[in-house]
């Protein structure tokens, strides 16, 4: 298993408790559109991801992350 697919699995595991509608997840799933998360849910989720990977995803970075795939890429980059 590559690093990226490991990160993908970890990210989707973190999404699960917030995925109230049980939406099927893929790289292309969007947080605002598909998962219908409001800003409070996004903040709680970002905090969970930050703690899982021991990284900071600033609000500035969050603005450019719309899909699960983009988040996985961002996490991979931030972990260096």
């Amino acid at each position: 298993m590559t690093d990226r697919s490991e990160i993908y699995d970890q990210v989707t595991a973190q999404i699960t408790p917030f995925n109230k509608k049980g939406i099927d997840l893929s790289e292309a799933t969007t947080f605002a559109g598909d998962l219908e998360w409001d800003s409070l849910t996004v903040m709680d989720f970002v905090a969970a991801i930050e703690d899982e990977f021991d990284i900071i995803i600033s609000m500035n970075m969050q603005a450019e992350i719309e899909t699960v795939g983009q988040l996985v890429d961002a996490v991979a980059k931030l972990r260096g």
Partner: protein
Amino acid sequence: MTDLFSKFDPLIEMRANLLQTGVTDPFGLVMERVVSPTVAICNGRETILLGTYNYMGMTFDPDVIQAGKDALDQFGSGTTGSRVLNGTYAGHKAVEQALKDFYGMDHAMVFSTGYQANLGIISTIAGKGDYIVLDIDSHASIWDGCKLGDAEVVPFKHNDLEAMEKRLKRIPEGAGKLVILEGVYSMLGDIAPLKEMIAVAKANGAMVLVDEAHSMGFIGPNGRGVAEDQGVLDQVDFVIGTFSKSVGTVGGFCVSNHPKFEIMRLVCRPYVFTASLPPSVVATACTSIRKLMHAADKRAHLWENSKTLHKGLREAGFQLGTSEPQSAIISVIMPDLERGAGMWEALLHEGLYVNLARPPATPAGMTLLRCSLCAEHSAEQVQTIIGMFTRAGKKTGIIGGA
């Protein structure tokens, strides 16, 4: 053509649905006449004011009013200019001196509103490559200050020391760090554990800014705020405050001991590119601040009011924002917006005004009836208020019993 207003359609619909129920618009109240810091005429009837932030009741203080009248006569109605050009009068320097004396700090800078003070200071001191670590329940003016600047913005869970520390430790080596906290969070009326949080911020090399808008004049032995009360004011790099609460007029400020602080007057755009406060406003603020230094009796009475109201509402069966009274704000949690608006209207019919607060201003999507007490509320008025809440609560079914 795309209508730029279509983005507001959900809110327009929500508002229309609420008003369709026949409820009075909670965001359209007009005070026809103001009798005192605690009483106004609304819709032709005498109404007790319990949602004004006029904590120390300075708005009708005779000395404060006289100072304003004198300044109007002597200096005119307005400055028509920026502080750095033609907008600094003797009164602006006098009110900044009053602030320095009030806080025992070296520097004070007065802005035209509290909103602009946060906007200006935060966006100017935290620049590109710096990190702002802030409480997620921060006031809109703090968030807007972050948005106006170029720093990386990192929020943490409300009042969560560990969440704050983790984020501070993850910031890259060498980056500038600013931690932003509030003394009193105005939605639930809870205070921050500033002593612990500031110690962690300092241990991680951050500068600290504390917004004491809702504590000035009231909390702390000298009314300097929550940081003073917890014995850590000397650890705070920047205190942000406002004239539109305890001081009783309008305006904002920052006080600091930073040796280079005065350069802010040249680089802070929300300070430079706007007109300064009118002479009457700075004169009333100056007089009020100096009187607040010696207001220990009023502070004690306000604490009594806060404790009495908190106890009375809790015993009546209301769900409150804090388990103990921590400030002059007592927040009553409503089940939803519609029933909150119904309760707000029932209180207005009783002759009581409180603030209806709804998302996104509130945390966790809550609808709140926010009560802010005044040192000028008599003990009798507080009992009357508890009676009004109880009747309105039963009528609207927020609390049990009929």
